């Protein structure tokens, strides 16, 4: 896509949310959320439905009033400022294009309302009064349409467009006003799978070329991982972890984050901490010791790609029966019912390995070194003592 003539918004577009709380009656939706959004970054709010991510975005947009806390945009407190005056643009899941207006008119609407006086908005008389402004508006619409490659659609009504085209038109309406930040509320949810994956890369590209701040809400952890500079995992009205996608994926600080991020889900084994700090689950013992010495119940998290098939005779192997096989082409995921009868684990194999494994057969697998995560009974991550040097080989 051709970058339009605009620079990043500089320091002006940093957004700060200070101890935002929101409750409806007695139900608390958001609990004291603090969030600093850097200028020009692509920040994703991700979490299961009902976690408050959309509410947070709507508070940022000014569509909801927070019960407590403050919103700052570019250093200015805007908690009491009307949505339109915050100069933010929002893209909605349902696109929310005005059904009775053409795409061009849809895209003009925010500019007309911002740049034209009441007299200039009048039909017939208005265009004569503000001819120069009208030309500018039309030009801006044309430029934006060119960037999004929707020039041919400008004269059509939203009802005549496909989902992907409406998506672009909605993006166009957001872009024309050159906002401080783009707020997106699950904009890809209504698209079919192939288009959704295509639009991911297109949105990321658009973000790079616009250099504007994007705040993106999604329940799809894959979108968060693929597009964002930073992602905030939300659950039950709290931000559990905020960080770069690989940080959140590789180093989750909470068991709920570990479970939510990554598909297929992380495998969790119930285990114990013994008195010298080794986490053990049945016969499996992690060699690395945790900082905690208290003996408590823990969960050991192992991602499917951190497991590998091995010969049954090798020490430290878990064995079980294959109950389901998911073939994704590049990878094959084996769902294995462990012999202890308590756990089901998902193991990633290469197609070469996996193809020979048939349903119902017995397999053994072990974990790759240095990848296990230990979570305490409260769900918090327990750091391993030598986590700083995780390259050290771990011997079972």
């Amino acid at each position, binding site marked *: 896509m051709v970058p339009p003539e605009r620079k990043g918004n500089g320091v002006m577009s940093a957004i700060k949310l200070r101890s935002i709380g929101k409750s409806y009656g007695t139900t608390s939706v958001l609990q004291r959320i603090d969030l600093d959004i850097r200028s020009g970054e692509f920040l994703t709010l991700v979490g299961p439905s009902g976690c408050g991510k959309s509410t947070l975005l709507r508070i940022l947009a000014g569509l909801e009033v927070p019960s407590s806390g403050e919103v700052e945009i570019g250093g200015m407190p805007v908690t009491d400022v009307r*949505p*339109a005056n915050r100069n933010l643009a929002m893209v909605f899941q*349902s696109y929310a294009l*005005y*059904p009775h207006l053409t795409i061009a008119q849809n895209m003009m609407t925010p500019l007309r309302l911002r740049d034209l006086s009441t007299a200039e908005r009048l039909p017939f008389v208005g265009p004569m009064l503000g001819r120069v402004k009208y030309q500018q508006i039309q030009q801006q619409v044309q430029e934006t349409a060119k960037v999004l490659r929707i020039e041919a659609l400008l004269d059509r009504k939203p009802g005549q467009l496909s989902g992907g085209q409406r998506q672009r038109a909605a993006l166009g309406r957001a872009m024309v006003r050159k906002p401080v930040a783009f707020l997106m509320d699950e904009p890809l949810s209504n698209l079919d799978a192939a288009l959704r994956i295509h639009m991911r890369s297109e949105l990321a590209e658009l973000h790079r070329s616009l250099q504007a701040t994007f705040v993106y809400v999604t329940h799809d952890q894959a979108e968060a991982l693929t597009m964002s500079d930073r992602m905030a995992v939300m659950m039950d009205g709290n931000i559990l972890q905020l960080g770069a996608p690989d940080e959140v994926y590789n180093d989750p600080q909470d068991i709920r984050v570990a479970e939510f991020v990554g598909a297929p889900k992380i495998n969790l084994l119930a285990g114990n901490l013994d008195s010298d700090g080794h986490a053990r689950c049945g016969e499996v013992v992690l060699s690395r010791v945790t900082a905690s010495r208290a003996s408590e119940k823990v969960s050991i998290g192992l991602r499917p790609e951190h497991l590998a098939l091995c010969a049954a005779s090798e020490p430290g192997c878990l064995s079980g029966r294959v109950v389901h096989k998911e073939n994704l082409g590049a990878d094959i995921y084996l769902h294995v019912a462990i012999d202890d009868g308590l756990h089901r684990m998902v193991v990633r194999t290469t197609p070469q390995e996996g193809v020979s494994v048939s349903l119902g057969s017995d397999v053994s697998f072990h974990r790759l070194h240095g990848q296990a995560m230990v979570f305490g009974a409260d769900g918090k991550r327990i750091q391993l003592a030598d986590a700083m040097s995780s390259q050290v080989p771990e011997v079972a």
Partner: protein
Amino acid sequence: MTDLSMAPSGLAGRSTFRFSTTETLKHVVLILGAIIVLMPFYVMVSYSLKSPAEIMQNTGGFFGLQEAFRDDYCIKLGNAVADCMVTPAIYNYTTAFAKAPLLRYLLNGVVITASIFFIQVLVALPCAYALAKLRFWGREAVFGLVLFCLLIPVHAIALPLYIMLAKLGLTNSYAALVVPWSISVFGIFLMRQFFMTVPDDLIDAARMDGMSEFSIIWNVMLPTAVPALLAFAIFSVVAHWNDYFWPRIVITGNRDLFTPPLGLREFKGDADGDNFGPMMATATIIVTPLIVAFLIAQRRFIEGITLSGMK
């Protein structure tokens, strides 16, 4: 075996209209209903075409013989008999327009129904928007009141309304015909139900674009609500165009303010008896605009009804 099974299927293929008792019964009932509804209209149109003698003796079929007859009133005015021979259909319709200022009444009807509908929309849309899309304390209670008002019959409050208008000196004016109907709870209810189906995102998008709440009502909600508005228009216009009760109460003297249904009275209870021909001609003229409007708007009307879920 094959031949036998071929025969019935061949028959079925030839005639898709197979006799079915339930279908026939349904149609008989529907046809009877249609006859009951259409019969008065048939009589109305037929009488508007026939001579008084044919109406009284019930002869002449639908059109009558259209034989010229003697207009007694014309002779009373001292004209020659030869000049007073008139064709029934022409006589009925010309008398309708001549004896009563029917054009004036029709114009009154248009002005009044149009102003009523315009003001009703002006009031109902913001109310419906607030009830459907804004969160405020007591909203459900207010909506409950709206539903309650739907249950109040017009006739129950006619007298207080009349007294109020009389005290204000507004009887015998257009205002007396329009003002009592300016707030339509039915309109508020209908539009509210429709607005509930408009996605919140659309309104939020308008707010982000910088529209005020009123501007959202007129620039976003109104255009999307056209089908529902059309349905409401039919209800409102039909009710007030045909209304005989209220105009009869508040328009007492001034014939210039008569609405079309009041015009029908001009032919009723004269000293020389009822003049059915011109009366039915007037009735025909009065209902024609509604029927034409309904035929034009039929498709959108049904759309509006189904989409507001009030079949």
